[in-house]
């Protein structure tokens, strides 16, 4: 839960973060202006159609020569066609601009994540929080499309229509403007206020509800077997009824916003009649234009109809961009030194020595070190197991050794102190097989090939052979080109770990760290995997992290972190 809470911390968004995101996603000037122009033309066609028709009918009643009407007749037909056509073009242009912005924002984010991952991502490492970040990118990228475009269009078209009415009857323009402002500013403001309020409280309730349901589902077997379903679902029912209450309050707010919009239009219509009718009587307004003025309020409010959702999107985009900027502004917790020293070359097949003394690792965002005062020397070809109960800092030690987390104390690789080495240099030499190595939604081949630049299919197959996956892969109809599905859904736990192992085999680093590769596996599979890892890595330096006792007889040294 704490991870999700931390990620949502900048909920009260500074407008500046939206500005910062907008600078990334802003469409190139031409496309942005073109979208506004096309959207405005489309709306003008809709209003023009009714206004011109009203004039045409009024004028026709006076039975003038038909020639006098031909311009109006042609205009009416053109407006009728223009509405749809302009709208279609606008949607294509604006969506293409928005997609460009989406790509730009994604690239910026990936660039940043590449620098700060994994320890700089504290607070957003969990799946749910990560997915939200992805949603945030989508929400922010559509800000132009959902908020800027309708607002700009409303201003342009609103000005045109008010100008037209003002030309016919100045007082009418004042009434229409007042109505448009009420429907275009007050109603969206109320909607956004209510919506934001709802987002604040309801998102929190929904988060709790989701957490409670998730935890009930993960305990389902124990709870059902114990016959405690009713008792354990009661808190969820309570949360649910709170949520319904909160949503009903939103409903009232939405009702008020809708009423304001409806009132603005209705009162503008009545107001227009009240000023236009006397104007016709005293000759200020030509009678043929009366129908034009009265019918305009019926259609002109289409200008502002999209603004409440535009305002809602603005609120959403603000919160989203705050979370994005929070990540974009993060600093690398393990920055490379200003002057990078080169690692001395060692002969082929030999490993540089890794020695650490009084090492402690502290994760960013955490006050206490995860592991303290560790010392050992890993000479070339030595195999060392790191054991200890869960939570004693085994994984943190591994992260520190590959410069994924900041370290204190002394660490030296090939005779060079860690603080003089770049992260990439260290990771070139020290391979790292994470506890939950990510399996990409791609083929088996691509899931392994990336470990070594320029690796051929044969290289991949060779590494599959040495991790004993080849027989299985070969039996698949598409072989190494089989897709493993999202997060490797098509693989068993053991197969996932072997894929991760195959990457290390392919990359062939002189030193390799394995972080609990047998976690979550059943004992038989786990033991077979342990044997295979230690076997395949023969001759190289290995740090093998485990909380199991199996395999400890196959290593040269055991470092017990729990003994501290």
């Amino acid at each position: 839960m704490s991870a999700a809470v931390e990620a949502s911390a900048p909920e009260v968004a500074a407008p500046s973060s939206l500005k910062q995101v907008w600078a990334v996603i802003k469409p190139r000037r031409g496309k942005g202006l073109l979208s506004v122009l096309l959207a405005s033309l489309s709306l003008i066609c809709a209003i023009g159609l009714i206004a011109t028709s009203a004039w045409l009918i009024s004028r026709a009643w006076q039975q003038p020569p038909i020639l006098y009407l031909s311009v109006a007749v042609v205009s009416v037909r053109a407006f009728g066609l223009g509405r749809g056509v302009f709208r279609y073009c606008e949607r294509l242009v604006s969506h293409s601009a928005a997609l460009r912005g989406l790509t730009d924002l994604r690239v910026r984010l990936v660039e940043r994540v590449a620098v700060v991952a994994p320890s700089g991502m504290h607070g957003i490492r969990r799946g749910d929080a990560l997915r939200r970040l992805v949603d945030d990118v989508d929400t922010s990228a559509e800000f132009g499309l959902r908020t800027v475009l309708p607002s700009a269009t409303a201003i342009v078209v609103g000005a045109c229509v008010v100008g037209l009415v003002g030309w016919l009857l100045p007082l009418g323009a004042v009434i229409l403007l007042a109505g448009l402002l009420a429907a275009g500013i007050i109603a969206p403001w109320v909607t956004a206020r209510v919506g934001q309020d709802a987002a604040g409280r309801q998102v929190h309730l929904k988060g709790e509800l989701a957490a409670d349901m998730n935890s009930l589902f993960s305990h389902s077997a124990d709870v059902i077997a114990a016959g405690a379903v009713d008792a354990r679902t009661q808190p969820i029912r309570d949360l649910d009824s709170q949520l319904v209450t909160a949503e009903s309050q939103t409903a009232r707010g939405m009702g008020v916003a809708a009423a304001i919009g409806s009132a603005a239009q209705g009162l503008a219509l009545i107001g227009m009649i009240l000023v236009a009718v006397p104007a016709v009587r005293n000759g200020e307004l030509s009678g043929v234009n009366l129908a034009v003025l009265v019918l305009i309020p019926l259609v002109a409010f289409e200008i502002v109809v999209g603004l409440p959702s535009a305002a809602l999107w603005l609120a959403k985009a603000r919160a989203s961009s705050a979370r994005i900027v929070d990540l974009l502004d993060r600093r690398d917790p393990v920055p490379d030194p200003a002057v990078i020293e080169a690692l001395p070359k060692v002969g082929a097949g030999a490993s540089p020595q890794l020695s650490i003394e009084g090492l402690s690792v502290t994760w960013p965002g955490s006050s206490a070190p995860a592991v303290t005062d560790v010392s050992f020397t890993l000479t070339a070809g030595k195999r060392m197991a790191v054991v200890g109960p869960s939570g004693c800092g085994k994984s943190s030690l591994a992260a520190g050794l590959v410069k994924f987390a900041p370290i204190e104390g002394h660490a030296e690789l090939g005779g060079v102190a860690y603080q003089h080495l770049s992260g990439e240099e260290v990771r070139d030499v020290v391979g790292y097989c994470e506890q939950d190595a990510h399996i990409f939604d791609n083929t088996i081949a691509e899931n392994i090939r990336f470990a070594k630049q320029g690796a051929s299919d044969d290289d991949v197959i060779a590494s599959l052979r040495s991790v004993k996956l080849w027989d299985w892969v070969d039996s698949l109809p598409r072989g190494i080109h089989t897709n493993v599905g999202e997060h490797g859904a098509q693989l068993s736990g053991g197969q996932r770990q072997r894929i991760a192992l195959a990457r290390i085999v392919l990359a062939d680093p002189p030193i390799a760290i394995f972080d609990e590769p047998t976690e979550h596996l059943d004992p038989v599979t786990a033991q077979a995997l342990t044997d295979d890892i230690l076997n395949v890595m023969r001759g190289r330096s290995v740090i093998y992290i485990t909380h199991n006792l199996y395999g400890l007889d196959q290593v040269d040294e055991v470092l017990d972190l729990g003994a501290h």
Partner: protein
Amino acid sequence: MRPFDPRLMRYASATRGFIGASIVAGILTTALIIVQAFAITGIVVPVFTEGQALEDVRAALYVLTVVVLVRIALAYISERLAFKSSAAAKSQLRLGVLEHVMRLGPVWLSRQNSAELTQLTTRGVDGLDAYFSRYLPQLVLAVMVPLCVGLVILTQDLLAAVIVLVTVPLIPVFMILIGLYTQGRVDKQWSTLSRLSGHFVDVVAGMSTLKAFGRAGAQAKTVREIGDRYQSTTMGVLRVSFLSALVLEVLAMLSVALVAVSIGLRLVDGTMTLQAGLLVLILVPEVYLPLRMVGTHFHAAAEGLGAARQMIEILEEDPPASGPRTDVPDLATATISFSDVGVGYVGREDSAVEGLSFAIAPGSVTALVGPSGCGKSTALAVLERFIDVDAGSVWVESNGSQVELREYDIDAWRRAVAWVGQDPTMVSGSLADNVRLANSSASDSDVLCALEVVGLTHLVAELPDGIATVLGEGGRALSAGQARRVALARAFCQQAGLVLLDEPTAALDVESEALVIAAVAELAKTRTVLVVAHRPALVELADHVVDLAGVPV
């Protein structure tokens, strides 16, 4: 998508009232549209043609004012009602799914992505707001307005009515035709699209893995390339899917233009009155408005309805069967026998079993052994009624009478059976809450007694608040061995005659194993125990050993 799913009415009764209200609101709105058109014409025409003053058209102005006021009230009420009904429907679906999932049980759940399931029931159904507040009311209007307003137009002008009559049905027909034509193309591109969009998530999620292999720097370029491909594919999809909106707008607007021009020309001829012409001009766009709105809100609504449909599908899954009999005998004195039992696909870790036959003698300890995947856990799941047998039967024999397992009421049966799974979990609450989970009436001394039997007295002494210490999420974490023993203490408290244990010593160190085995032996003194065993020390404890390896799978 079908615009309406009748199952929604069944599973979310809040929908029913709302649909009734929407129809009333629809009738009212339609009437208001017509009255408003007459009122406007009644003001404009006499002022323009006869030079009348405001006082002369006072009546029409009053009518118009009333119309405006009623429309304001209607806007407030229907918007509020929509969001309220949506909240109620969402809650009904959510709680319904929750209850049903608990009935479907852990075996069903193990096949689901439970995180996605909770997302679906919380944020996923929010799309229903749009369905209720925008789509459904407009759908009612889209049926009602063209019909009623069309009839009014007919009374004024035959030609305009004919134009409306021809074009209105054309809109859905064209949209369906375009939909059919484009569906294939859109579907094909959709799979490419979702793969491309998934790539970004994948890269961000796997960044540390990429970084470990020195490949993080190259990712921005790949994301850019894939983004460009995503863009061109998406634009291809959009070009086609925006077509239906184009046709809708063009048809609607061109019809209005056609009507307006034809009215104008007939007014010049003098074959039509201004009153009728203006009335028709005001009414014709109203005919097309709800149709356009339905199109606009189609996607948001489809999303919400899609989520609701997924939930309804869960609600329609069959849970393990329950029987009528609540008179479950004391299982410590009953013989339970599997006779040629078969279970189909169970889940990933467990597996199917076929032709399983063995008996559990009263008061004995029976160990199930065999290689992983031979159906040991499945046998326990059958006895705990987490899953139904597909073939054969399980018999319960007590006091000379034989009853089939499925005859018993599922809750009554579960009360008589204690079950300790491979990975017992601690529910959020105190240690005592966890021990008395299956027997809420157990006193503190019962709890302490049960904890003593499983050798956890020293743990209680170590904990800051003793048995009141909070465990579970956000609370104190227990080691695997401690959690197992708390679960065993739970089984003690339950006072059930039959205890099912699934590998209670797996992945434990020697010391913890000895403590667990001692606890099992204590349990077996007064109960029948069925235990899935891996390690020899546990098998030694058993009176009977059933080796499932010999059973053909």
